């Protein structure tokens, strides 16, 4: 499989699998083809991932500068928004937003931290710092 990688991606961890897509020719023929992403797919996926990476990096800088709590960083890293995070962790929305403040985060109980850790699928020690 190794030499079979998709040449349009610079990053080899992306676009390494083939998907099935349909097309239509004049004369009433629907065709199935199995192949890598085409140009359109690549552009829109690249755009989305660029944006997500920007957001993650931005959150990381804010946490390191002490302006936000690590919850923000892990939320962005898991591509969540506050509403989704509140659903996943089982903590109400306004409390989740309250925990974005670094000072509030320092005083959180072990039980709440455990809820966040489970939602992010990491340990509590990892949750307390950013990587």
């Amino acid at each position: 499989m190794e030499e079979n990688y998709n040449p349009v991606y610079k990053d080899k961890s992306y676009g390494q699998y083939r998907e099935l897509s349909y097309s239509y020719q004049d004369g009433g023929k629907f065709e199935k083809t199995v192949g890598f992403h085409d140009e359109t797919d690549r552009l829109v996926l690249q755009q989305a991932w660029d944006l997500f990476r920007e957001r993650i990096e931005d959150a990381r800088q804010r946490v390191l500068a002490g302006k936000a709590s690590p919850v923000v960083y892990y939320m962005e890293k898991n591509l969540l928004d506050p509403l989704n995070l509140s659903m996943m962790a089982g903590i109400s929305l306004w409390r989740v937003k309250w925990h974005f403040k670094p000072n509030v985060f320092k005083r959180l109980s072990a039980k709440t931290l455990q809820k966040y850790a489970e939602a992010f699928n990491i340990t509590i020690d990892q949750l307390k710092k950013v990587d």
Partner: protein
Amino acid sequence: MEIKKTIIDYTHRQAGHCESGATSNLFKFNGFEISEPMAFGVGNGLFFTYIPFLKIQFAPMISFRNLPNTVFKRSTGYMGIDATVVKKIKDPREAMEMLDRNLERGIPTGCQVGVFQLTFFPPEYRMHYNMHNLVVFGKEGNMYHVSDTVMEFPQLITYDDLLRVRYAKGTFAPQGKMYWINHVIDKQVDLKPAIILAIKKTVNDMIGIPFPLIGVAGLRWLARDIKKWPGKHGNDKASFYLGQVLRMAEDFGTGGAGFRFIYGAFLKEAGELFNNHQGLLEASDMMGHTANKWREFTYMGARNCKNRSKPEEDYGTLSERLLEIADKEKMVYQKLKNLRF
């Protein structure tokens, strides 16, 4: 200790759309050959909704498909096949035990899962999308053999990982939903009444519901909104929102152009089944052309996404294109509505 091994002889076929692919594979396992487009069409897969106030992955929600599990439920219902759908299982351990019992009895079982933590899934598609479907067909020690129709080959997944994705949280949480077909289909299944019912239902979904965010009306609403995005949100965000539309249409297992190709293929197959029914074949041709228009639209849109700050294509042109597509689609549905079988 000897490793317990139960693997069911199940054929994995790659498909464009996860659920209709799984449905068609399950039908084939039970002795009834049905293609993916047919399963998709009979199961009422086609839909359109645009919900601007609900954000998925930071952009407005757009869906080209029906609610999860509609395809399986409707297609078995219309054809009169004995199938079981377990909607919600509270205890995750119990859900996994139920799955194991099914495997021991030799029943491949479909499960609704979340995509984000699915280990074998391509990394570029790992988003919080909980409406994915896969079929579990074997267990070997701690590993499960699963057939995910988006992938080219069957995959392996561990017990813990499978449990986690089956209980992914968020919007449309799967809650351990599973489904399977109970009996081998030995009687002759007549597809014709099922097809007629399914087409009527789809036509009603697309043009019959008097609510502006569903069906063709929703498509028009989206077209009018696209024009407003750059002024309202700025170029960067507008291009990201547009990207979301395109990603929903082209990627995420749609078979391309927001299922329109698959639906066209279904109409063609249905037309051949009805002894070359002229109306259905014409509708299929129109659907194919609409799908090609969709592909042109996504291609134009993608060039916009390439250069975010200086869009090459005017959003007004894109909006006009989409309105044109909406008109064309409406003509297809009206044609289907007036068909006599």
